[in-house]
C-alpha cells in the first residue's frame, strides 16, 4: 500500500543518490554493492553462530515488503521490532533509499525493489554459509529456527521433502519448528527421524504421559567451547494450527522447563547456552528476563529483521527476518564460561549481488523439475503492489477476501493474518507459484457459513487479544485476521471485549447488527473436516474473471 507521496519521496531520494534514469540507477545500485562487501566480517572470538529462520520454503529469490505497521503493547510499545518505516530508519541510522532501507523497511518499497532486485534464494544462502565456514572452520554452528518445510507449492506437493533435501545440503547443526507440524505428526516424525541433525523441542510433550516428545537440547564443541543448543518450538502450535493433526503432542511456553534445561546443560559443562527459539520476539524478550543463564536467543516466528542484536540483561536476542532475505552471523568470544564480547552482522541476501552456489542451484532445479511447468503457469496479473505482512489487512489479503466474497457468494470474508507470503510488484504476472506462496497449506478448505454480528465481534476481539495482550506469554497468533466486506475501528491498547468498535457492513454502510446473520466465507479453519474448495482454486477462479487486478489500500480498518 504505497502512497503517491511515499512514491515521490522514494524517487527523489533515489535520484539524489543514484541519479534519475531507472536503468542506470539499477546498474549503479549493483555496482555499489559487491559480494565481498556483503560478506565482509572481521572474524572475532572463538565461536561463530549462523542463523536462518522462517524461510517458509522460499528457495528462489522473492520480493518481501516488511511491515509498515507493527504495533507493540506493554513493555514492547515503541521498541524494536515494533518500529517501522521512517522511524525504523532513524532508529538504526539507515539512509532512505539505501540497500539496507530496502531490505529492512517498507519505505518506498516498489521503487527500491525495482532498483535492488529480489532477495533471498537458497543457492545464494549456500554461498554465504560456505564463505562463513571457510573463514571459521571448526568454529561455526549453523542453526535453523524452523518454518522451513512449509510455504510453497513444491513443499506442499512433496510434503516437505524438497526442503529437507536442500536444507540437508546446508548441513544445519539443529532445527526447531512450527508450520512443520501442519504436515501431521506421522510425517513430521518420519522426516525428523531421517535428518542427519536433531529436531529440537524442549517444550513438546506427549500429552498423555507428559513425557518429552523431542530431544530438548544438543551439546556441541566449537572452537574449544562447549555449546548447548536448546530448542523451543512455537508454543501455540496446537492452538494456532490444527491440533487434530498432532493430537498426541502438547506444546506451551513452559518457562519452568526451559529453566530446568538451562540448569541441566550448565551442569553438563556448557560454557555457551543458546536458545533456538520459535517463540516470537516479544516472548523471547520476556523469556530472556525470566530465565537466567541463556547467552543467546536466536529468535524466530515473528519474522522481525533487526540490524543489531537486542540485549536483555546478559542475553543477546538475534532476529534474522524471514523468507530467506537474511542470514545472521554472530561471532562470540567465549572464555571462562562466559561471553566476553560479540560481533554481529545481519547479512542481506541481495540475489543480484551474491553469486549462486552451483551445487545448491542444481539441487533446487532438481527438486522443482517435476513441477516447473505448473509453477510457471500464469493465472493473472497485478497492476498494483500486493503484499501481506503487517498488523492489519495487506493488499494481497484484500484480494483474497474479495475472491472469497465473489466466488463463494458471501457477504463478509475472513482471511488469517499470516506473517508469511512474499510480495508482488505492480505489472507482475501472477503464477501458480506466486499464488501458492501466499496460501499453500495442508488445510486449505474454504468454508461458507452464517455468523451473527455478535459472533463476528467476538472473533475480532479474540484474535485481537491474541495479538495485543500486553503480556506476550498470552499472545498466540499471527497478525490480525483480515476482513472483507466489513470495516471496523480498533483501539489495540484496550482490554479484550473493548478493542473493536464501529463494525460496518461495507455493502450498504450500515452498522453490523449483532442479531443479524451474515454469510461469511473464510479459509484455513483449524477444525477437522472443514469442507469447501481449496483456497488456491477460489483465487484462481477470481483472477480468471478479474485480471489484471488493482487493489487500492484498505481504509476500512481504522486504528486509534
Amino acid at each position, binding site marked *: 500500500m504505497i502512497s503517491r507521496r511515499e512514491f515521490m519521496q522514494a524517487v527523489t531520494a533515489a535520484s539524489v543518490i543514484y541519479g534519475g534514469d531507472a536503468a542506470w540507477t539499477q546498474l549503479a545500485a549493483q555496482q555499489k554493492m559487491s559480494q565481498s562487501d556483503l560478506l565482509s566480517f572481521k572474524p572475532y572470538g572463538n565461536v561463530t553462530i549462523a542463523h536462518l529462520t522462517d524461510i517458509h520454503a522460499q528457495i528462489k529469490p522473492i520480493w518481501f515488503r516488511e511491515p509498515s505497521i507493527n504495533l507493540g503493547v506493554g513493555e514492547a510499545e515503541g521498541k524494536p521490532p515494533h518500529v517501522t518505516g521512517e522511524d525504523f530508519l532513524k532508529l538504526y541510522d539507515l539512509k532512505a533509499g539505501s540497500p539496507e532501507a530496502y531490505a529492512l523497511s517498507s519505505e518506498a518499497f516498489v521503487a527500491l525493489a525495482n532498483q535492488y532486485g529480489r532477495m533471498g534464494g537458497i543457492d545464494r544462502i549456500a554461498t554465504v554459509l560456505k564463505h562463513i565456514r571457510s573463514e571459521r572452520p571448526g568454529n561455526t554452528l549453523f542453526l535453523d529456527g524452523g518454518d522451513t518445510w512449509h510455504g510453497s507449492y513444491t513443499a506442499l506437493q512433496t510434503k516437505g521433502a524438497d526442503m529437507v533435501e536442500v536444507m540437508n545440503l546446508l548441513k544445519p547443526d539443529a532445527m526447531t519448528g512450527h508450520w512443520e507440524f501442519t504436515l501431521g505428526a506421522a510425517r513430521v516424525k518420519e522426516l525428523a527421524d531421517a535428518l542427519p541433525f536433531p529436531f529440537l523441542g524442549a517444550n513438546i510433550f506427549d500429552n498423555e504421559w507428559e513425557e518429552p516428545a523431542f530431544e530438548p537440547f544438543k551439546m556441541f564443541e566449537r572452537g574449544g567451547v562447549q555449546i548447548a543448543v536448546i530448542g523451543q518450538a512455537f508454543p*501455540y502450535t496446537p492452538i494456532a494450527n490444527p491440533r487434530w493433526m498432532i493430537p498426541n503432542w502438547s506444546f506451551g511456553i513452559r518457562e519452568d522447563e526451559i529453566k530446568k534445561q538451562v540448569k541441566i546443560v550448565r551442569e553438563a559443562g556448557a560454557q555457551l547456552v543458546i536458545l533456538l527459539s520459535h517463540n516470537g520476539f516479544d516472548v523471547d524478550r520476556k523469556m530472556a528476563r525470566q530465565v537466567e543463564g541463556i547467552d543467546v536467543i536466536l529468535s524466530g516466528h515473528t519474522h522481525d529483521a533487526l540490524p543489531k542484536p537486542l540485549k536483555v540483561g546478559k542475553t543477546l536476542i538475534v532476529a534474522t527476518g524471514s523468507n530467506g532475505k537474511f542470514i545472521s552471523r554472530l561471532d562470540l568470544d567465549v572464555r571462562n564460561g562466559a561471553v566476553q564480547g560479540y560481533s554481529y552482522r545481519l547479512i542481506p541476501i541481495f540475489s543480484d549481488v551474491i553469486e549462486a552456489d552451483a551445487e545448491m542451484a542444481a539441487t533446487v532445479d532438481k527438486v522443482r523439475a517435476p513441477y516447473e511447468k505448473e509453477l510457471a503457469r500464469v493465472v493473472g496479473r497485478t497492476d498494483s503492489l500486493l503484499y501481506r505482512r503487517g498488523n492489519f489487512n495487506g493488499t494481497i489479503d484484500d484480494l483474497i477476501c474479495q475472491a472469497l466474497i465473489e466466488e463463494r457468494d458471501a457477504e463478509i470474508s475472513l482471511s488469517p493474518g499470516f506473517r508469511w507470503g512474499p510480495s508482488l510488484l505492480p505489472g507482475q504476472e501472477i503464477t501458480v507459484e506466486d499464488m501458492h506462496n501466499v496460501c499453500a497449506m495442508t488445510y486449505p478448505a474454504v468454508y461458507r457459513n452464517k455468523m451473527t454480528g455478535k459472533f463476528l465481534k467476538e472473533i475480532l476481539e479474540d*484474535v485481537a487479544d491474541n495479538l495485543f495482550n500486553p*503480556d506476550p506469554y498470552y499472545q498466540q497468533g499471527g497478525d490480525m485476521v483480515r476482513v472483507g466486506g466489513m470495516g471496523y475501528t480498533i483501539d489495540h491498547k484496550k482490554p479484550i471485549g473493548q478493542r473493536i468498535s464501529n463494525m460496518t457492513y461495507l455493502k450498504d454502510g450500515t452498522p453490523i447488527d449483532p442479531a443479524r446473520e451474515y454469510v461469511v466465507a473464510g479459509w484455513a479453519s483449524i477444525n477437522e473436516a472443514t469442507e469447501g474448495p*481449496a483456497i488456491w*482454486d477460489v483465487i484462481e477462479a477470481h483472477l480468471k474473471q478479474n485480471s489484471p487486478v488493482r487493489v487500492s489500500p484498505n481504509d476500512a480498518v481504522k486504528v486509534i
Partner: protein
Amino acid sequence: MKSLNRREALVFSAVTGGLLLMTPTGAFANAGDAMKTMEEFTGGKPVGDSKLIALEMPEIAENGNTVPLAISVESPMTPDSYVKRVIIISEGNPRPEVATFNFSPLSGVAEASTRMRLAKTQNVIAIAELSDGSLHMAKRQVKVTIGGCGG
C-alpha cells in the same frame, strides 16, 4: 494432499462450540461464588500469594475440555510440619470448587496433578493449608481462545 471439493456450506460447529463456551450465562459461577468457596476453605482468614506453593498450568489452553494442572507445596512433610490440604478454585466455571487434595506426613511430598475443564478464560486459584494453620495461595490466568490465524 487431498483438497476438499464439496461446495456446500461447512459445519462450523467446533468453532461455534468454542465460542459458546466462552460466553458465560447466568448459570456460571462468578468471582463472588469463588470468593465464597475460598472463605469456606480459609475460614475467613486472610491469605496472600506465596512462593511456597506452585500452580503449574499453561498460559493458553490447548484444549479447554482437559487442561493439565499441577500443584506442589514446599514442605518437610514431617508430623511437625506438613501440608494438610490444597483446594483448587475456578473463578469462571459453573462450580467454583474443582478439587481438594488431602495430604498427611505419610504423603512424603505435597504434589498432585490432574486435568480440569475450563469454561472460558479465567483465573484458577490454589490454596494450601499447612499443619500450623497458615494459608498459601497461587493464582494463574488461563486463556481459552478460538485459536487459528497461526503466524
